[in-house]
Every structure is written in structure tokens, then in C-alpha cells.
């Protein structure tokens, strides 16, 4: 199945893109997305356990994904 991964701010700078499409097994979780990202150049600048949102809600490493989900990897927020 395919999911969209969004990257922002310092994480987008680290990986050199703001958006990726990943092909994952049907039982994939958030942790699988992060494992895929870690293989990419620049991923050493990501923290061990970044915040992640699935379909615009904060999620856990164990959150199961579904086809066409939007997975956002969220740097430390700095509003205000």
C-alpha cells in the first residue's frame, strides 16, 4: 500500500524534501515509516523518536497505517 510522508522545517532540510510516497506492507506502522526514512541521506539529523501525526492527529510508533494515509514527521513545535 502507498502512504504519503510529509516533512517540515528542519526535518525537510535534513532529508532534502517536503513530501515522499512510500510503498509499505499492509500491516505497516508508524515505526516502519521511520525505519524507511532512516535509510535516506540526511536522516542522521532526525532524532531517535520524532513526533509523528497520522492524518493530522498525533500518533504513536505502534499506530497501524492504512492505504493513502498521510504521515507527518513533526519537528519540535515552536508556535507563539
Amino acid at each position, binding site marked *: 500500500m502507498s502512504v504519503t510522508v510529509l516533512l517540515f522545517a528542519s526535518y525537510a532540510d535534513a532529508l532534502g524534501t517536503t513530501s515522499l510516497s512510500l510503498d509499505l506492507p499492509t500491516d505497516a506502522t508508524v515505526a516502519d515509516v521511520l525505519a524507511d526514512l532512516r535509510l535516506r541521506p540526511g536522516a542522521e539529523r*532526525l532524532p531517535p523518536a520524532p513526533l509523528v501525526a497520522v492524518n493530522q492527529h498525533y500518533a504513536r510508533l505502534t499506530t497501524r497505517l492504512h492505504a493513502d494515509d498521510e504521515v507527518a514527521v513533526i519537528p519540535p513545535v515552536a*508556535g507563539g
Partner: protein
Amino acid sequence: MTPVARLHRDPIEPTSLVRAVSGASHGAVLLFLGVVREMNDGREVSGIEYSAYEPMAARELSDIAQAAEARFASSAVAIEHRLGALALEEVSVGIAVAHPHRSVAYDASRWIIEELKRRVPIWKREQYVDGHREWVDPTGRGTSTAEPEVLT
């Protein structure tokens, strides 16, 4: 009525925020403005660029406004956060709270800004007078967090 809660590309108008919450039942109207300041961590700042995961940030702002009105009964709340390039002294965030009594208005205003800073996916990149620019990490952990952190 759904409270005002939005991202804003144009300058924030404090008077419109105040107008959105004012009413005859509210004896207290409190306005908080976050403003771009010239020094941060000893470095001279010339401006800040704000960006967001916009659909989620807008929803989180709306959730916070509605949660505040539920948590602080009888309050009216309006929140706006600016995006884009801001110069010194420009308003980055505006929060208006009205309540029959001042003490609840103060509590609600403080709660809203702390929630906003904790969970709304907005980022800022500071531009420094020396020409450098950097993403701000308020957690102070650089890019490293040891444990998964889940916000609910």
C-alpha cells in the same frame, strides 16, 4: 458559536480579536500578543519566518479554542497565529479571552498560549543580524529526543 481560531498571513488586528469576544455579559476582556523581539539566546534577531502543517495547525488551534471555552465555562475565545515572514515588533500570535470575571480570563489566556506552544505544528526560523538563520527548537534538545513523545 464556534470560536475564532485561525492561521493568518496578513497582519493580526488586535481590535478585531477583542471585538470577536466582547459582550455585555463579559466584565473582563484580556488580550495577549506575542511579538517578534530583537534578542533571543543572546543573538540579535532581524526577523522570524513562521511556517506550519497548515490543515493540522488550523484544526489544533480550533480544538484549543473549543477546549478552552469548555474548560473555562462562560468564556469567549479568539486565537490567531501569523504565518510568513515577520519583522521585529510584528505580532506573531494574538489571543483574546472574555469572561464575566477577570481571574478566569487570566487563567484561560495562560492555558491557551501554553497549549498552543505545546502542540500546534508551527515552526519558526529566526533570521539573525549576522546573516545566519536557524530553526528554533524550544525543547532545547537540538534534534534529539530520547523517548517517543506523544501528544494527545
